[in-house]
């Protein structure tokens, strides 16, 4: 080891001191950059509930943490749930609320299903499940069906909240909205299965549940005796609604979480990599030359108005496609990312953004207008 002379020693000391400061500063900024980059993966429940339009009112979820009833003509807010002085915290709202018999049914991420009076937003009854509610409730013949992350599907009387039958439990959490058709409730579970149960008794209607290759988070859609449901195994499945036998399956390039849309003999859906597909409802063959590539994740179900297919992505890109060819007609930019399903009302397509704004897009030209939710 070499010794340093006295003058050199002082210089060396100063240099070391400077180096230490520079290194310390560098470390601080490196840690900050790394922390910020790492924190980009941090996720908390934010919600993606779609808006609901009834006659002259709009049910929207500002910030996806409460439900507001807005009079569209008077441009005023009728009520908010939970009320400002309430100690109820919904945490987040994912499922689209259901409206029936003057009641609004609302499933919160806090695991509670609420029945609210549509007129004033007061709570009529509530039922607590043991898990988060991510899928929305669905109403049929006076009964509301809702799935929970506690793995079970529940059925309650809409007017009283009484339990219709014992919860039907699966092997994993249920994140999808059930679909009811001809007295049968169809729903998917993250245990990779699709179930069909009797809407009145809650007993299984298929000899065995349909088993997909991966978890199933998307909402099943029933059309002309066929159940269409996408999975986190990249497949869109078409199942015989009577026995659960697979009619065909179509492999997409990534997970399918979007609700399928059946229209004009085609099944439209998007994948989490941003591809949009138009598949023949009978044969399961792609009807377009190639899938449409959108920029961002397609989580929400698409909408069709006339011959235009509308899809939106988590990066806020909204596209109008020719439903028969899949070619782009127009594109627009939403105020922020869109994960909600697209809803058609009065010839316009509504959606809610990640930040909780409600917007509507004109399917003819892609013009986006914000729907004000007054305070």
């Amino acid at each position, binding site marked *: *080891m070499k010794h340093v002379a006295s003058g050199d020693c002082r210089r060396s000391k100063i240099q070391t001191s400077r180096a230490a400061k520079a290194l310390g500063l560098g470390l601080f900024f490196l840690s900050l950059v790394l922390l910020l980059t790492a924190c980009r993966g941090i996720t908390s429940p934010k919600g993606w509930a779609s808006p609901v339009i009834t006659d002259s009112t709009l049910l929207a979820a500002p910030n996806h943490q409460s439900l507001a009833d807005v009079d569209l003509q008077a441009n005023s807010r009728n009520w908010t749930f939970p009320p400002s002085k309430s100690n109820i915290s919904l945490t987040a709202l994912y499922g689209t609320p259901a409206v029936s018999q003057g009641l609004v049914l609302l499933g919160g991420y806090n695991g509670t299903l609420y029945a609210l009076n549509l007129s004033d937003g007061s709570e009529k009854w509530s039922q607590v499940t043991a898990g988060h509610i991510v899928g929305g409730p669905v109403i049929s013949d006076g009964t509301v069906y809702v799935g929970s992350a506690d793995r079970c599907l529940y059925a309650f009387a809409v007017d009283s909240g009484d339990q219709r039958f014992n919860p039907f439990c699966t092997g*994993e959490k249920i994140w999808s909205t059930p679909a009811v058709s001809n007295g049968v409730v169809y729903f998917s579970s993250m245990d990779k299965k699709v179930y069909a149960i009797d809407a009145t008794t809650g007993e299984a209607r298929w000899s065995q549940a349909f088993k997909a290759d991966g978890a199933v988070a998307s909402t099943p859609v029933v059309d002309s005796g066929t159940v269409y449901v996408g999975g*986190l195994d990249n497949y869109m499945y078409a199942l015989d609604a009577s026995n659960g036998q697979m009619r065909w399956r179509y492999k997409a390039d990534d997970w399918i979480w979007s609700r399928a849309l059946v229209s004009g003999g085609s099944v439209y859906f998007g994948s989490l990599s941003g591809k949009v597909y138009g598949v023949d409802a009978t044969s399961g063959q792609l009807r377009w030359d190639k899938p449409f590539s959108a920029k961002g994740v397609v989580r929400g179900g698409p909408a069709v108005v006339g011959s235009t297919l509308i899809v939106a992505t988590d990066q806020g890109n909204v596209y109008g496609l020719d439903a028969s060819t899949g070619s782009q007609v127009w594109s627009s930019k939403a105020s922020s990312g869109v994960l909600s399903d697209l809803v058609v009302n009065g010839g316009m397509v509504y959606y809610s953004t990640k930040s909780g704004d409600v917007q509507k897009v004109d399917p003819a030209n892609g013009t986006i207008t914000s729907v004000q939710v007054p305070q």
Partner: protein
Amino acid sequence: MEIITLLWNWVLVNPMANALVLLNNAFFGSYGLAIIIFTVVMRGVTFPLTLRQLRSSRAMSAMSGRLQEIQKKYKDPKRRQEETMKIYREAGVNPLGCLLPMVAQLPIWFALYSVLRLTVGDVPESTISLSQHLYPWSFIQHAVPLSNKFVGLNLGQPNVVLAILTGATMFVQQKMTTPPALDEKSASMNSTMLWMMPLMFTYFAISFPSGLALYWVISSVVGIVLQYVYVGSGGLTWRNLFSLQPAPAPKSAASQVKPATEKIEPDEDEEDEETEAGEAVADERRYRKRSRRGKRRRKR
């Protein structure tokens, strides 16, 4: 920023996320077991860096006696710093040597933290994010959702017991690794850091999914074992375990309080950084021998 994120994901986050899912498949679909194995494997992979850090800190610890003596002996800060630097040079120890391996490990720990937040998250958004990180191999993709259940714990939810364990193990590890303070100022800082860091992590563990807390606990336990095997207990005993003051310097280090004014002639071939700790200890032995010889001469 987008390029940094892409690189960050491509190089670290994606391989780690897929490795964790793979381990989950290999270990009976138990994600808790996968986290434990993964943490131990990652500590094994970064072991050379950890060892380097431990050696540096051991060398620093061995010199602590002499450094304390300098603090007492010289009031002039400039002179004090000169003498301190001289000791570092003589021992062939870079005072920042124990920081560099730690910095090199930082990206790995940040990435792992990010991966765990993605995979144990019980939130729909985290599942969407996870899809962007998994390789398109069916045996990886079909493993989702990962089971959150592990020995009665829900790894996607915070757990108080694991949060307390996080703080406790981190406290013990801190106590073993905090070097003896050279002055009152650094003693106060060490003392604050000793309880503040574990307290902060306990708070994080209460707020975050317990899968992360499981990772922190296992990581700290492995750190404690490595510290004990390669450096020793750092003066930690059952008696001072619960004290909020850093553990006192071990006797071996404390007994090495010697004046630093005597010049030491180190060997030319002692520049290998890999043997910093060995050098420091050998240096101290030579120093003691010469010091004893000097005393005998003076007596004569």
